[in-house]
């Protein structure tokens, strides 16, 4: 027993030693084979090249992938003088090259001394395929994944065995899954109807776009009724999941649009809803916020600019708002139509001021790294900037709510709006409260401008495009009701995005506007009206 084990261990050790010894020899042999496959490239026609590529792909040599890739990209050259294949590293006239077979850098050579080895699309397809197979055995899971995905895009029964072999040893769940899918995709072409049906069942409910075509074809054309049925069911499952995904996407876009609407409207909900002041310059206050963002980016690195821009924009817009209130609006309390006209005048002045100072052209505000890119929530890919804006909207709403409900100013604001005379009698300085409330609403507009600068062009017309929408949101939700503004903004955002796919963006907007015009005529006090005798006045 013991001796047999020993003998076995000895044998193993010996073979290991031999193998170690053999490696450089084998490498040398491989190098030779590699050069042998490369040498005819110079003169080969495309059919020959197909075979040469197959030869190369069959070699287990670390340089094969780089060479094939270079060939597909038309970067493989033949240096006649040295009689060797080289890979071009740039496109300069004096081109940097490396030896194809060894990967050793060879400095620069004149392009005139190099002959390009051309490739056609058929060749490229083949290369892509073979590269994919090569990737399958890579140690990097990302490369393996890419290899299987490439296979899915361009299935080739010849690669089936490699897939099966990989599946047997693969440990990564995602890749296992992809491999199963790829094998099932090959099985769809099996002569055995049972195999086809099983494969279809495996593929059902998968979201990869490459799978739908073959399934649809099978559901329509397969000779076997059972297989056809299996394909049909599989297709239905896929479509159902796609639909769900589509809804989730619409919902997300709707929520993100809704957040923008809420951000734009919520300041107005304070000035119009709580104070009853029509401020047509509200949009321009948002514009000021957006320009403040742009200015901070001139001084600060982009990644740090937004946290600075938010309080700064609040301050700038709030001060502008207080100036408007003290300079114009306070003389017009109780005359809403005049307030509307005067503040419209202010909005024209602000627009032209921005045009004169910053030029009439749009300014581009950069997006920080931490806001760019996407985040995968399961199969749903959401853009980070929209996600951040949704969160930002919630934060602003919560802060405003807190400010109105829990602070001294909030208490005074509510007192003044409910009964000005009584509040004054209780010692509330109502003029100061008016100015501060207006400043608060305006400041929020400025903060909304920071968010808008991440979504749209920052230009003198920024405010105008949001003012009608903002008023609609406030009126739709019910004037004087912050929660109403929230619900109204979200539902309008989602409604808009739901109509958009079949009506187009502009028509969707028109339809939503038309709906609102009709809605206000049916329920002039909005979704959540304030009832009672006081509200009639």
């Amino acid at each position, binding site marked *: 027993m013991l001796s047999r084990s020993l003998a076995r261990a000895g044998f193993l050790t010996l073979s290991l030693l031999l193998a170690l010894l053999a490696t450089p020899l084998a490498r040398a042999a491989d190098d030779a084979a590699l050069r042998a496959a490369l040498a005819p490239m110079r003169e080969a026609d495309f059919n020959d090249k197909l075979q040469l590529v197959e030869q190369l792909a069959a070699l287990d040599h670390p340089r094969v992938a780089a060479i094939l890739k270079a060939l597909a990209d038309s970067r493989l050259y033949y240096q006649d003088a040295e009689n060797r294949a080289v890979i071009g590293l740039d496109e300069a006239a004096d081109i940097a090259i490396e030896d194809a077979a060894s990967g050793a850098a060879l400095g620069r050579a004149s392009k005139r001394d190099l002959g390009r080895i051309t490739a056609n699309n058929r060749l490229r397809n083949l290369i892509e395929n073979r590269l994919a197979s090569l990737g399958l055995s890579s140690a990097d899971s990302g490369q393996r994944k890419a290899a299987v995905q490439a296979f899915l895009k361009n299935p080739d029964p010849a690669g089936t065995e490699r897939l099966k072999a990989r599946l047997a040893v693969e440990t990564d769940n995602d890749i296992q899954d992809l491999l199963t899918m790829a094998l099932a995709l090959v099985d769809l072409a099996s002569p055995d109807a049972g195999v086809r049906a099983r494969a279809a069942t495996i593929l059902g409910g998968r979201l990869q776009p490459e799978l739908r075509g073959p399934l649809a074809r099978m559901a329509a054309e397969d000779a076997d009724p059972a297989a056809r049925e299996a394909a049909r069911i599989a297709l239905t499952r896929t479509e159902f999941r796609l639909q769900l995904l589509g809804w989730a996407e619409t919902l997300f876009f709707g929520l993100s649009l809704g957040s923008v609407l809420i951000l734009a409207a919520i300041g107005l909900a304070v000035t119009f809803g709580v104070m009853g002041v029509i401020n047509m310059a509200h949009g321009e206050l948002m514009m000021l916020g957006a320009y403040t963002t742009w200015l901070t980016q001139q001084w600060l690195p982009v990644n740090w600019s937004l946290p600075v821009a938010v309080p700064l924009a609040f301050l700038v817009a709030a001060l502008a708002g207080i100036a408007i209130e003290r300079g114009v609006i306070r003389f017009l309390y109780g005359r809403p139509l005049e307030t509307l006209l005067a503040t419209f005048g202010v909005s024209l002045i602000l627009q032209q001021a921005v045009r004169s100072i910053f030029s009439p052209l749009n300014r581009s505000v950069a997006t920080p790294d931490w806001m760019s890119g996407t985040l995968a929530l399961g199969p749903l890919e959401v853009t980070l900037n929209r996600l951040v804006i949704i969160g930002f909207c919630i934060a602003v709403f919560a802060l405003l709510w807190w400010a109105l409900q829990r602070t001294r100013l909030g208490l005074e604001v509510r007192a003044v709006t409910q009964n000005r005379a009584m509040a004054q009698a209780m010692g509330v300085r109502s003029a100061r409260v008016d100015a501060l409330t207006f400043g608060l609403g305006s400041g929020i507009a400025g903060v909304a401008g920071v968010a808008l600068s991440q979504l749209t062009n920052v230009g003198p017309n920024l405010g105008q495009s949001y003012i009608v929408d903002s008023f609609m949101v406030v009126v739709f939700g019910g004037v004087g009701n912050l929660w109403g503004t929230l619900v109204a903004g979200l539902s309008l955002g989602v409604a808009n995005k739901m109509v958009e796919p079949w009506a187009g963006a502009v028509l969707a907007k028109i339809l939503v506007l038309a709906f609102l015009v009709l809605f206000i005529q049916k329920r002039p006090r909005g979704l959540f009206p*304030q*009832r*009672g*005798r006081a509200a009639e006045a």
Partner: protein
Amino acid sequence: MSELISELDAAGMHTPVEPVDASHGILLYLEEVSVTFDGFKAIDKLSLYIGDGELRCIIGPNGAGKTTMMDIITGKTKPDAGRVFFGQTVDLLKLDEPAIARIGIGRKFQKPTVIEPLTVLENLELAMSGAKRLRGLMTTRLTGAEHDRIAAVLEQVGLLEQARRRAGVLAHGQKQWLEIGMLLIQEPRLLLVDEPVAGMTPAEMERTAELLRSLAGAHSVVVVEHDMGFVRSIADWVTVLHQGRVLAEGALEDLQADPRVIEVYLGDDHAAG
């Protein structure tokens, strides 16, 4: 389409209503009327009857539902429950404000609401034409008969001298009389008068009392008033409203001795008068 046009044409009047049937001696019925604002019961199962030709005063502390009651009778507010009839046959809940005005219910607001840029004469002309079709409004002249009628009303409310003056420059009391005149020229069966003497001098008050007393008989008059002295000078029958209900009804002297009424007025800081 023709229906639409005729409806449009009725910018003033629609078909003349048959005279109100007050054969049972009662002109206005409110029965079990309730209305709620945001959970607050402004009117709570209120029942009230106004006799034909009667002069009735309604008193009650602030928030008792006096103005809301008027809003319901004139169609401005729709109650949640209850019946409101004008005479035997006319269901007021089915009509809107202009229709109610046309069948003969006039309302004077708490604040004098005359049209200030227009002259006294024009205000009355405006009131007189309320029941006219659109065509009837498309004229710039007064007929002789119309002129006489306006003159008669001006005489009645004592504003003959002021006919050509702008309503905006009238004294407070004169505006109140003009508004009453605007109602009278429409020859209503029922006049609802909300706090007619608020802010009046004693002399003006006296004239107003006289005017209202002279109207009773030919018209039913309902006066909502805070001023107890004034109430005493005009009404023999008084209704006390409290928390949207009728608390008590009777002659003013009896009511002033009623412990429930005293409780309401003293328990609440709003003293009557």
